[in-house]
């Protein structure tokens, strides 16, 4: 348990919404990972024209250092879970706060690369991958805003005192 003076008042919606988004990310990433390893599973997606999941998931860019991007995505979202637990949002430990921001920012940088690969190299869009990118983007936005709106307990008590 944290003592009251060592906690932060984060917006109430931060932890549950972030966890929900993280779980959605895990779900989509599991689907993409299964489709990558199990050849009997095909992605429900177009395979012709600009929207072409197969073209994207079978491209040379679908692996980074030999590791499937789908698996990296899954690991990323699993690693995100402890950072978005309510106890982590309440913590005044700057390592957790900054670590969470840095983790989300690293996801965004990777999303930049993946969107670049889709739009500029592969010339096709994978809708399931786009869902992952969107979730990462929303999680980043949520994290930076919730962190900005968080207030240390000492200031809240000061406000209470004034009232």
């Amino acid at each position, binding site marked *: 348990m944290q003592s009251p003076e060592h906690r932060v008042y984060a917006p109430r919606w931060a932890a549950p919404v972030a966890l929900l988004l993280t779980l959605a990310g895990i779900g989509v990433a599991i689907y993409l990972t299964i489709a990558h390893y199990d050849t009997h599973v095909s992605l429900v997606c177009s395979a*012709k024209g600009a929207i072409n999941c197969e073209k994207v998931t079978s491209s040379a860019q679908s692996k980074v250092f030999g590791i499937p991007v789908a698996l990296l995505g899954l690991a990323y979202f699993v690693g995100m879970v402890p950072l978005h637990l309510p106890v982590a949002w309440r913590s005044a430990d700057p390592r957790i706060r900054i670590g969470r921001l840095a983790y989300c920012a690293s996801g965004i940088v990777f999303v930049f690369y993946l969107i670049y690969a889709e739009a500029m190299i592969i010339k096709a869009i994978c809708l399931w991958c786009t869902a992952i990118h969107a979730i990462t983007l929303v999680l980043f936005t949520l994290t930076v805003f919730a962190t900005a709106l968080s207030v240390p307990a000492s200031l809240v008590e*000061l406000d209470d005192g004034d009232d």
Partner: protein
Amino acid sequence: MADDSRHDRQGRTSTKFAAKKAATERIAAARAAQAKANRRRNVMVAGGSTLAVVLVVGLIVVVGLSSKKKLSATAVVAAPASVSSAITSAATSTLSATPDISLVGGPPSRLTGAKLTNSAGLPQVLYVGAEYCPNCGATRWPLAIALSRFGTFSNLKTLTSSEASIPTLSFRGSSYTSTFINFDGKEQVDGANKPLETLSAAEDSLFNNFGGSPNGSTPGYPFIDFGGIWKQNGTSYNYTELSGMTPETVAASLSNVAAKPGSTIKASADVYTAIICQMDGGKPANVCTATGVIAATAALAGAK
């Protein structure tokens, strides 16, 4: 006098207390104002960073979509003798080797309904692909080897796919003769994505109905209909195995089934062979009872 002195002391005490209280309130107000300003600054930083992220994403997408990929048709030439003979040789010489079926991804799926035959009643293999398409490039090698076990190709071509530069064959303008099956290979567009070979109404219907993934998405290249009993959507192995090679070096690798890409192409060819054996009732026997084909038939038994 004594009363005056007491009043004075009390008055000074209350003035001191009031001053202290006022100072505390001023400090608290200043801290609260500072906290509010910090919060406002943090929110602005958050908004700015989010906006920057959205702008970068938008920029990449807009630039990517506006810069249309210019596909230019690469040279399509008659297959060199070394390539044609390597395919014919691989068709027979690798039959007895046991394939590593684990190398085959995206195995064919079963079809139900009408059998696909040509006008003479022979079971038909319909292939629909595109010359720009790297997945088609990977697929043609094992398909050509499998078909060469049942008949003879003439006028095969070689090229490099305009997308991803995969060395491959082309079925455009080729002919195939067999007493067991019929092969209908259509390259629908060339390397520049320009129309090349037209599908008949029946072929178009098959392509549109079954050319998508098992989950019913829109059709894509390549599509193979094996006699109406099996279909292949997409490639059976990752085309990057052929990156940096030429049609000649791929052809040379076909005899070495112990290493990629020869082993992968052989395993895929055995799977296609096993399917064609199911189409034509197991003829010719020397092909359909070969070690590699029996192993592939067993692997197919588990396919959906």
